């Protein structure tokens, strides 16, 4: 029988070689690239369709000089790719990666002190960032403080839930909203008086710094309230429940019960952080974003230090165990529900923490500041950067929040004040980046070792990449 197999394969090979020339896969690749380029030609065309000539956009994109340019472009790209392929994709990639690997292998880099020093350098660069290049523009400073800082903080918290404990949370920004509304209430801007009368007497007038611990405690409780009844669910089911939780929180905010949330108008004029102690007085000024950025850096450093310890401790290991095999973890004596609740509470409180910071920066909140899309974006930041890896999440969240702002561009920043990309198209480009990313590097930019290992094993059919499936041993009848 063994001979017949080799004979068969030889026959198959012969049959293949006698196939029509156009069945060669390289032509399929050419067609794919050509199709992508034709779509791109439409997407990037400034010409708008008109009601008098429906085919205007297509004519202008395809049957014109523009179309020819794109055709040539696609063929060139395809030719390069084919040559690349013929010379051995992996070999070239390995050669290109060689210097990187050499740098990685330098023993001095593995020294703890070198690592710490480089970390310090990074922090210093981050602190000096607002004085460098385009970041001197107030627009980018505002992006740094209001977007990058806030969402890095939020993504770090979500990383605990999704990356470490393996619980898919799609309603994460609900906790962010709870933190934001807590801030508004504590600062005395909510609740507005009955029927919106100006003589309202809000119960609190606190310095915003006090909002941090209170918001953390409140969101932690909210996380426990959501988690306790739902954590028996796994994977997709938990995701749906958290989705529902997000909607509940938003609807409460919109419906304005007892005037607590201010309804669709939300709260405005929320004061900023103030520091008035030991004779030192400092006011975070809304016109200057730099102090917020420094504050955000400080908070991120604190959170990163705490989480780093968590990751390499009993708690982090236990989360990994639950993520990999909940049944085996329970059989080893791990109180799984307790640890899942812990992850939920820690993640939720970090989100609330970020919510306070964001509210103090934007000084006005409405329910529309916390749409479901933001929850999903933060999840995308975590996955993009590399689930379970603190460095990855920081890098991922920074890039993904900064890039859209950069592409939209500030007025007259460059390109004669015309945004590089139509602001309306930004989500589309982000989506495209995520697609490409997930196909070619599913483990994220800078994956954690454990996660990369799990993904590699899942591809070989050993275990799951996530605690998304039912336990094989079944559940109690």
């Amino acid at each position, binding site marked *: 029988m063994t001979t017949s197999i080799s004979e068969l394969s030889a026959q198959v090979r012969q049959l293949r070689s006698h196939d029509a020339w156009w069945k060669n896969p390289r032509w399929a690749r050419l067609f794919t690239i050509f199709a992508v380029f034709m779509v791109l030609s439409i997407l990037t065309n400034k010409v708008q369709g008109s009601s008098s000539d429906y085919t205007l956009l297509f004519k202008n994109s395809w049957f014109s000089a523009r179309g020819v340019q794109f055709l040539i472009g696609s063929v060139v790209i395809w030719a390069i790719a084919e040559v690349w392929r013929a010379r051995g994709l992996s070999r070239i990639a390995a050669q290109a990666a060689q210097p990187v690997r050499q740098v990685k292998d330098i023993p001095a880099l593995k020294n703890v002190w070198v690592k710490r020093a480089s970390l310090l350098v990074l922090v210093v660069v981050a602190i000096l960032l607002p004085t460098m290049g385009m970041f001197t523009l107030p627009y980018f400073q505002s992006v740094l403080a209001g977007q990058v800082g806030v969402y890095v903080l939020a993504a770090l918290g979500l990383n605990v839930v999704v990356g470490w404990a393996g619980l898919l949370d799609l309603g994460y920004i609900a906790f962010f909203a709870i933190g934001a509304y807590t801030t508004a209430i504590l600062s005395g801007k909510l609740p507005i008086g009955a029927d919106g009368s100006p003589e309202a007497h809000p119960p609190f007038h606190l310095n915003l710094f006090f909002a941090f611990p209170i918001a953390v405690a409140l969101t932690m409780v909210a996380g426990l309230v959501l988690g306790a009844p739902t954590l028996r669910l796994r994977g997709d089911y938990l995701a749906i429940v958290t989705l529902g939780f997000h909607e509940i929180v938003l609807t409460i905010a919109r419906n304005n019960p007892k005037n607590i949330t201010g309804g669709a108008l939300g709260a405005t004029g929320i004061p900023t952080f103030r520091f008035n102690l030991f004779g030192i007085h400092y006011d975070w000024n809304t016109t200057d974003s730099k102090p917020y950025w420094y504050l955000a850096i400080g908070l991120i450093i604190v959170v990163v230090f705490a989480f780093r310890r968590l990751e390499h401790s009993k708690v982090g290991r236990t989360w990994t165990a639950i993520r990999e*095999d909940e049944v085996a973890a329970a059989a080893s004596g791990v109180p799984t529900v307790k640890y899942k609740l812990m992850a939920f509470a820690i993640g939720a409180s970090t989100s609330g923490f970020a919510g306070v910071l964001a509210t103090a920066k934007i000084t006005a909140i409405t329910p529309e500041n916390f749409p479901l899309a933001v929850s999903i974006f933060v999840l995308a930041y975590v996955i993009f950067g590399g689930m379970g890896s603190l460095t990855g999440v920081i890098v991922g969240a920074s890039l993904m929040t900064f890039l859209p702002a950069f592409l939209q561009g500030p007025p007259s920043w460059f390109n004669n004040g015309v945004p590089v990309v139509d602001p309306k198209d930004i989500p589309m480009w982000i989506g495209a980046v995520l697609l490409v990313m997930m196909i070619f590097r599913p483990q994220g930019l800078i994956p954690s070792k454990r996660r990369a290992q*799990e993904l590699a094993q899942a591809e070989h059919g050993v275990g799951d990449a996530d605690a998304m499936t039912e336990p094989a041993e079944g559940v*109690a009848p």
Partner: protein
Amino acid sequence: MSTSTETAPAGSTVGGPVLHAQDVTLRFGGLTSLDHVSLDLYRGEILAVIGPNGAGKTSLFNSLTGVYLPQEGVIEFVPDNGTAISLVKNGAFNRRSNRKPHLVNRAGISRTFQNIRLFNALTVLENVQIAAETRSSSGPVGVMLGLPRNRRNERAARQHSRDMLEFVGLRGKENAIASSLSYGDQRRLEIARAMASDPKVLLLDEPAAGTNPSEKLGLAELIQRINTELGISILLIEHDMRLVMSVAHRITVLNFGKVIASGRPSEVQQNPAVIEAYLGSEAAEEAAAEAEAAVATDAVPAARDAEPVEADAEPEIESEAEVDAAEAAAEADAAEAAAAEEPAAEEPTAEEPASTEPASEQSGAEAQAEAQTASATEAAETAEAAEEPDAEAGSEQSPAAESGQTAGSRDRDTNEEGSA
């Protein structure tokens, strides 16, 4: 290792039961997985639970460890201080409850799994450390603040894990990824993880499945060392009869969720009910005849050959009622086999129609057949006289046949052991 100092009364049953299950019944809808199973594991002994595939062995383990809640019966764990801990009990208002798996582990019962369940992406050491650390008091806040107490706890847990790894013979592989280990080493790692939480009772679910003969020998030695050196009582599920016979002090045999025999290995080997459960009485007869005729024949081919023979054998059954009963039982068996978890269970059951006779009554091997046996009793009684001596004769062959999956060479070995 605090447990290593304790003395272990190896093989003795003087210590009283450490794990006590009484009338445990577990049903999945219409399928009765465990049917009034009672079982006592004595302090310091190795008790093997054997039975054909689908007999309910793993269900029993899952009931003992809190994964399943049996509908009837109680399970108790009696630690060294003598106060019993209820694992499954009838609470107030007839509300049944069980201890959750992690609390069962905390009480002092650890288990391994039939299909290895390791934390595959973690290192060998981390796998064990996770179990060891469930006993440390470190909390998340203390960890984030970096309290020195946590570091001490962590160091202690790591040392304990290293000790356990050395005990099972995985020294030097601490930093390997768990999934990269060989199958036998993965089994050992699972045992090390189970022992890291300092159990009093260790439940091993087919520890030798998928390992090669030399690994099996090592495992047998390891199981005995756990029992004698650490004084841990062991409940062992295993299909490999050589391993079972060499390490177990007592054996309990399950078939169709019922305990059909229990006792010392030599007693169980000669129990006719056990022979029937594994081979069916016809097959046992055949095998016995073969054994008498030729000296060194394979029991397994004999058992397989018996299947076609069975059809020929049926006309030999005198009474009409018996034939009907046998047919009805065959139908019931087919339904049962379809519902059973593993298709392999079909082999013994397919041979069962012929065993509607007395042995099935006294052993209760076939719950479904009971209705029919009532009508068949008269005929069966006449058959009894003829049946009994044959079964006795076939006893030497039977446990070796191992539900028709072993090679003939091993059968001969087991026979020698059994007779020794």
